[in-house]
């Protein structure tokens, strides 16, 4: 039984614009599922549609058996889905601590306890809690963005290209953190350009090409497929 189901999603940014042309996607309980594909395949558009930033023209999205299709982002957040955009995923003029508070906005009673937990999990946030978020490095910003998403203890976490623009070392640390969070039982959907890393940490993978599902399957099997290796993994 999957936690998150997106079925036959058709969506785009304008009336005549169809970037997604009937995409299926699912994240099961406790899984890491990655979406890979070339630029313009619709990976980020799919995440925006699932999180409510884009209203699908057709198709359905359900979370824990509840229909969330076309609902407002704040309603989807309250339903238990946390989405971390690729860019602009922090409040730059607010402090790290205030960012965490806003991350837990919908559940204010639990905020103090979860801030302590976030700072234990990511010590850099503790040492920089009074710094303005705009002063953080790229890797620290991504950590903060993820920690903000975890402040509501979501049932599914959706990450849009979390390693984009990071140094290899920062990216590696970030992937380690994602795996650790998943081990605690959180289901994670991840869009990544860094296909080899994404496939390495995922149990299942979706390959999108031109707004359609191209391949779906076990991440390790897809990573071993010579054709996939040639196109997405550079070898």
């Amino acid at each position, binding site marked *: 039984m999957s936690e998150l189901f997106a079925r036959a999603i058709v969506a785009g940014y304008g009336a005549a614009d169809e970037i997604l042309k009937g995409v299926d996607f699912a994240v099961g309980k406790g899984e890491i599922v990655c979406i890979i594909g070339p630029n313009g395949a619709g990976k980020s558009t799919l995440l925006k549609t699932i999180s409510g930033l884009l209203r699908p023209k057709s198709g359905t999205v359900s979370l824990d058996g509840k229909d969330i299709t076309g609902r*407002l*982002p*704040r309603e989807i957040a*309250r339903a238990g889905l946390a989405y971390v*955009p690729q860019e602009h995923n*922090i*409040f730059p003029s*607010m402090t790290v601590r205030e960012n965490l*508070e806003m991350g837990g*906005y919908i559940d204010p009673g639990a905020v103090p306890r979860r801030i302590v937990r976030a700072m234990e999990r990511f010590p850099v946030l503790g040492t920089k809690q009074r710094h303005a978020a705009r002063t953080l490095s790229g890797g620290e910003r991504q950590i903060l963005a993820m920690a903000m998403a975890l402040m509501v203890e979501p049932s599914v976490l959706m990450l849009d290209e979390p390693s984009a623009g990071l140094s290899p070392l920062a990216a590696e640390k970030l992937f380690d953190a994602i795996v650790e969070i998943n081990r605690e039982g959180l289901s994670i959907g991840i869009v990544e350009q860094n296909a080899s890393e994404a496939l390495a940490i995922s149990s299942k993978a979706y390959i999108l090409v031109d707004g359609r599902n191209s391949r779906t399957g076990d991440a390790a099997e897809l990573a071993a497929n010579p054709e996939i290796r040639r196109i997405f993994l550079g070898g």
Partner: protein
Amino acid sequence: MEVAQLVLNGVMAGTVLAVPAIGLTAIFAVLRFTNFALASHMTIGAFAGFVANTTFGLPIVPSLATAFLVSGFFGWMSDEFVLRRLRASGFVTTAIGSIALTIALENFVRFGFGNQMRGYDLPLRRDWVIQGLRVSPQQVENLAIAVVVVALLFAFLALTRTGKAMRAVADNPMLASIKGINSDTVARLVSFIAMGLAGLGGMLTGLDTTIDPLVGFRTILSVFAAAVVGGLGSIPGAVVGALVVGIGEELSLLFLTPAYRTAVGFLAILLVLTLRPRGILGQRAY
């Protein structure tokens, strides 16, 4: 000594100017348009305070609270029923709509109160002279009230969950919606608080002189200049900008007749847009 007196007057005027300037910049930060209807809300506040003070005999501080509440209510309603519907059409349309709105509201006040100048019921008091500098007790009280109001606003934005949510929407509206913040509620709240501050500023301006339906219209250029000079969208910037414009307007009296004092506002906008378009403190909301 003349310069020192003008600087002192400028600080007094600038501090009062900061109150509506914060309102203008807060609306820009959250709703992304310049709400020129702030002018008529200054007038509404000034007259609401006038009625509270002269008709109902309330002292000045409760009258100021009345000015805040009444103009804040009008601000909330005018945004809900007029400007919110225009926002989807873009910044320019909404800003032009706010000019039309301010003309309508100003005339609404004119229908009720006429065009004549009116004064608040204030005790007559002798000016204080300190080290050769003259200052009226009312100016000092206005300064103190403005400082307290600005401090309370800063505390609200820095310490309360709602204040932080307002800053979050100003900072990154898309992320705020993902985090579950209701931007419609924040928009209503910012309209209420900002126009409440406008009304309060309108009454504070009137306490030092007189009021008439043009009290907001006469001040809006200075308010706009203060917000632009400080960095449109930056609340600390609005305070800094208001002091710069207030002192600049007073110092201009060394070279210009009072009739040309408003030229300082234009000049300040021109200089800032040419040399530092983001304003003195940039566009940081808080």
